[in-house]
């Protein structure tokens, strides 16, 4: 059965309508991140050059991916890691389950990984009796509230401190009226500590994997990935095939761009390099495709694989800021979500490319220069070609297409439309179903005389003037 089509416009309307607190706070918090990003970028004279180099490294790597993946496998294996290959989410989850099951591990602690999110891994493991605890604070909040992350860097950014106090009071017995972030943070830290100590395995993702050294790098601000990897004996890392960088010297470019773009900070608090298992421990690396090689073959969309998941395009997106990430109904939200999600399910996500004004801010902010805005327009073409457009929209544009192609018809309609607007009763124009424009907006007043009419008169008058002696 085909999945139900996500309606981001309706979801965003609900986000806006819930109250006067959530959306303004969401907008302002993310805008503040964008402002900090601007300041951080401005402090680096070679910022635009860095973006160019980063984009080139990614393009080079993506077009030589097989070779770099094999190199990474060989070098990581030499360092004592065990490498697994997963074609899709099912294979990825099966590998994780096998590793845990063979070792009789029943509880794991994990840090943020969008790939594991993509694979629906937590749910898969929970149905098999594994206790999964998110260690990133934002992710943990989302887990306790039974929601997916709404932002790839700030998973619970759509929530207010009051929302979080309520969730924590139910889950770990904090005072529901105390919304002090330090108090809440400390309470969660206490609760998480026990779980770190009990966990049989720690799971992480990776921001970068270096072919030359077989090392991978995890960037966090809470250090949670480090405890997860350091305390339990078993460390499992899920790495998407596009995370590869050829050389360790490439890394500096990306580290300089990542956190500045994400939050406007110089670097994440922790940039941890994992080079093989620690003494007495095990390191398992699951290199996962899950649709990436298919995307790599799409001429119009393969550039999306350059993404380093910084979230800058979400922070800057004026539509995302007013919508909240959950409105996109997908693993990835915001501009990057619009261009990634349809590669997983075109029908389900066919409305996402329309949830954009095509303002282009995402393209200019992206540290690896993905042409996000152009890709959104290209996805619209795909959706229109494949007839995913709602029928009402298609009919309207067929009619418009016919009118615009014939000048006499067009000028006729123009006059009729303005005549109709002058006489149509107010209630009709402000009817919610008939005319969404009118709910928040007054209709434009049509001019008494069009430019064309003015021009014809003007020309006539000029000719008459000239003819006079």
């Amino acid at each position: 059965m085909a999945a139900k089509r996500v309606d981001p416009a309706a979801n965003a309307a609900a986000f806006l309508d819930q109250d006067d607190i959530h959306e303004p706070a969401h907008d302002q918090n993310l805008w503040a991140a964008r402002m900090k990003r601007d300041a951080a970028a401005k402090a680096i004279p070679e910022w635009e050059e860095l973006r160019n180099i980063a984009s080139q490294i990614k393009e080079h790597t993506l077009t030589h991916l097989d070779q770099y993946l094999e190199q990474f496998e060989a070098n990581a294996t030499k360092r004592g890691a065990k490498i697994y290959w997963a074609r899709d989410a099912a294979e990825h989850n099966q590998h994780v389950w096998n590793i845990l099951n063979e070792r009789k591990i029943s509880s794991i602690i994990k840090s943020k990984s969008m790939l594991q999110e993509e694979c629906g891994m937590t749910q898969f493991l929970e149905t098999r009796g594994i206790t999964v605890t998110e260690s990133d604070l934002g992710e943990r909040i989302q887990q306790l509230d039974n929601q997916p992350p709404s932002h790839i860097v700030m998973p619970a950014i759509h929530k207010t401190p009051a929302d979080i106090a309520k969730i924590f009071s139910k889950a770990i017995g904090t005072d529901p009226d105390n919304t002090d972030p330090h108090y809440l943070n400390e309470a969660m830290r206490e609760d998480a500590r026990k779980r770190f100590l009990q966990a049989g395995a720690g799971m992480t993702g990776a921001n970068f994997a270096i072919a030359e050294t077989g090392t991978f790098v995890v960037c966090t601000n809470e250090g949670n990935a480090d405890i997860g990897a350091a305390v339990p004996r078993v460390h499992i890392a899920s790495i998407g095939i596009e995370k590869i960088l050829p050389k360790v010297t490439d890394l500096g470019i990306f580290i300089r761009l990542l956190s500045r773009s994400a939050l406007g900070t110089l670097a994440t608090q922790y940039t941890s390099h994992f080079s093989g298992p620690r003494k007495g421990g095990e390191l398992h690396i699951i290199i996962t495709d899950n649709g990436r090689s298919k995307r790599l073959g799409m001429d119009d969309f393969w550039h999306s694989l350059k993404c380093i998941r910084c979230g800058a395009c979400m922070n800057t997106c004026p539509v995302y800021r007013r919508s909240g990430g959950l409105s996109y109904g997908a693993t990835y939200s915001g501009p990057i979500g619009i261009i990634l999600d349809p590669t997983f399910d075109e029908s389900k996500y066919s409305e996402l490319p329309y949830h954009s004004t095509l303002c282009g801010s995402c393209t200019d902010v992206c540290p690896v220069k993905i042409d996000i805005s152009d890709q959104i327009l290209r996805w619209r073409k795909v959706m229109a070609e494949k007839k995913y457009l709602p029928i009402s929209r298609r009919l309207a544009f067929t009619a418009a297409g016919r009118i615009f192609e014939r000048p006499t018809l067009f000028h006729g309609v123009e006059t009729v439309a303005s005549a109709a607007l002058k006489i149509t009763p107010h209630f009709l124009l402000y009817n919610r179903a008939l005319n969404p424009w009118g709910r928040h907006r007054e209709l434009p007043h049509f001019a008494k005389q069009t430019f064309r009419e003015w021009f014809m008169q003007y020309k006539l008058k000029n000719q008459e003037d000239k003819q006079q002696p």
Partner: protein
Amino acid sequence: MKVALFIPCYIDAIYPEAGIATYELLQRFGVTVEYPPNQTCCGQPMANEGDQGNSAAAEKLFVQNFSGYDYIVGPAGSCVKHVKQHFDAIPQTDEVKAVRANTWELVEFLHDVLRVDALPWAYFRYKATLHNSCSSIRGLGIAQPSELMGPYFNKSEHLLRMVEGLELVPMDRPDECCGFGGTFCVTDEAVSAKMGLDKIDDYIRNEAEFIISPDMSCLMHQQGIARKAGIDLKFIHIAQVLNGGPF
């Protein structure tokens, strides 16, 4: 220099004074301006929906109307951006390519081609702010986008600084999208309206009386919101200010 005036459909029907101002302004610089009377629409509304089939006819007609001119000048960034950058529903013959390459947005044309350095007739005694549209900034490059790092420039602002009496006030989020977005403003009405309201809020906070823009489509949306909310802000096309009317 043979210049064709490209007056997008909504300017023709709703904001003819912006068209008139453009026509008069170009003539002030000694340019011979023609107005091909059979023009309709550049096809942008359909193309933005991804609807290539229905854009093709409009694009074909546009080329018929505007072929053979040295310059095609339109007072609308988003329409010009469409012609220059997305006009691909029809085969790209030499004729099509020439029309696309010769199409200019008004501010660009004044700034880059005519190299306007004085507007002695222009007088506008108000506090106003400038709304450059996203298509004009990030599409056509009439100003440095705030996202990109590099030297500051703003061609609309440069021209407005030549207008006597005009006090330009800054905005908190100068190049934030206003939420018009073509069909977006109807299909995504709630988000679109909120973006527009936030823009209006920004204007009020900074005490602007007039909003000046090279793109009337954004202003149509913003004006609709301001009127509905009963807010007394005035919206005007940059050509009217640079030409000294009609107001």
